[in-house]
């Protein structure tokens, strides 16, 4: 009996020694702060004082009924996310299909498109600020095309497309390599069989390839969705949320609420909303996309 207990105890100790470091790290960096944020969202707290005054649902009331800026940020984030998810995935998939064929230098091409992805987003924003201002001015001088004279970062409508372009430019390579990996799993004999049956390239793509790479599409849309909803760095360096507050995303709005105007309690309420938003949108997306996945 005692021998058995000792063995059990020993097993538990070993289990603890292997798993507790990870648990401790995750509790400290993610789970405890997350629970604290949920708690703080019901308080008024300026970040400096030790006291957090409990104010019930006041933060949420203000957020829903009295904060048009936050809703503007929400709307901008959702629109930008939708646009970038569609553009990135369509372009990446198209490019992946082209690169998946027997092409000279396809590895070099794949590596080339991946390059922007290794650069930090904050730097990406600065690079494009340079292109949109000094670069476009020179383009205009040498080509005379009116297009380059538009105020791509200063105009409240055009700036949307600038941010979209930069986000897509940065992330395309990443989704490209995921799609290429997905395309490589499509069995060649299925493609050949459809060719013998007389299917043309388009039918082949939409009827065979696309359903078979659905898992890659699920993954890529999931990642581009959550990256879009979390956009922060590139906005900060490219537009700083402007002109005005036109390109302020939810993440930037949360950051400013807490660390610029010191309303920490209110900031945490916004961050809880962001969590719920991402949770709901991604689970709906994953469920909807998973249903369309097929088995070979």
């Amino acid at each position, binding site marked *: 009996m005692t021998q058995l207990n000792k063995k059990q105890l020993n097993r538990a100790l070993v289990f603890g020694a*292997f798993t507790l470091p990870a648990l401790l790290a*995750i509790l400290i960096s993610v789970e405890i702060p*997350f629970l604290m944020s949920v708690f703080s969202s019901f308080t008024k707290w300026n970040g400096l004082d030790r006291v957090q005054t409990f104010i019930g649902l006041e933060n949420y009331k203000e957020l829903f009924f009295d904060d048009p800026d936050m809703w503007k940020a929400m709307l901008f984030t959702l629109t930008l996310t939708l646009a970038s998810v569609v553009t990135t995935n369509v372009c990446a998939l198209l490019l992946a299909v082209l690169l998946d064929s027997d092409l000279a230098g396809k590895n070099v091409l794949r590596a080339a498109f991946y390059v922007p992805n290794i650069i930090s987003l904050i730097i990406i924003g600065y690079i494009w600020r340079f292109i949109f201002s000094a670069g476009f001015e020179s383009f205009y001088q040498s080509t005379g095309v009116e297009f380059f004279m538009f105020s791509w970062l200063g105009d409240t409508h055009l700036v949307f497309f600038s941010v979209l372009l930069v986000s897509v430019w940065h992330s395309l390579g990443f989704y490209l390599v995921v799609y290429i990996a997905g395309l490589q799993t499509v069995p060649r004999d299925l493609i050949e069989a459809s060719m013998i049956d007389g299917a043309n390239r388009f039918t082949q793509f939409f009827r065979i390839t696309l359903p078979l790479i659905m898992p890659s599409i699920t993954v890529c849309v999931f990642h581009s969705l959550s990256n879009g909803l979390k956009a922060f760095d590139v906005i900060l360096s490219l537009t700083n949320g402007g002109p005005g507050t036109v390109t302020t995303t939810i993440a930037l709005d949360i950051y400013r609420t807490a660390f610029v105007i010191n309303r920490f309690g209110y900031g945490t309420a916004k961050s809880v909303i962001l969590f719920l938003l991402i949770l709901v949108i991604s689970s709906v997306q994953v469920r909807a996309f998973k249903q369309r996945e097929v088995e070979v």
Partner: protein
Amino acid sequence: MKKRKLTSSFLSLVLFLVALLYLYPLFLVVINSFKTFSEITTNVLALPSSLEFENFLNAFRIMEYPRYFLNTLLATAVGVSGVVLVSSLAGFKLSRTKTRYSWVMFILLIAPMMIPFHSFMISLVKVAKQLHLIGSPFGLGVLYWGLGASLALFMYHGAVKSIPHELDDCALIDGASPFRAFFQIIFPLLQPVTVSVIVINTMWMWNDFLLPLLVLSGSKKSLTLQLAAYNFFGLYKVEWNYAMAGVLLTILPAVIFYLCLQRYIIKGMVSGAVKT
């Protein structure tokens, strides 16, 4: 057959042109970082008439590049090695132990994959402050452990399944301690996952901006390269020659890392993405 070959080489030519256009902005950054200020204002597109290395010397000096490079290296090294250690240990044990508690622990450890960083960053700063992890690259690295562990653990957990458990059983029967059995027998077999985990986390920590901004911006000595670039760019918004030299210096380490390990990086990033 001949016709097919022709269209294929035509397609590859077109794609090469598209790729060149795609990377053209980066080319502009490179050539303009070698120009004088007046040369940039006259024409951005022209090649530099002479190579102005002074831009780099200036950026290097004003950014205090060496110090911030070492800071970033320290934070990344501490972060990556911690993530590899804690997540391989836990991933292995949780994959081998098939009890209810083990399952609960597993869920608890991978749940953070569903929690976006921005939804708890405000309180994370508070926790970090209380644990004195704020204001030093080392503390930043420690904070990365928990942030990177979930995905890495998930990847290790899956990979351990394909390693026969007879291997660790034998080592234990032969009298090895559980840790020794893990580090000498299992861990070397997990090398492909370890490479992916290192790649994913290095790219992320090296390029990360928001967490360093939150926990380091108060102490000037412990900034990372990305933060230094952020400050530097704020100073030289209009002097594009300095700004572009700074940009180039900041991205150089990542580019070299990529050029040397390109195959592993792409493979690692893909495997990380597909796992979630």
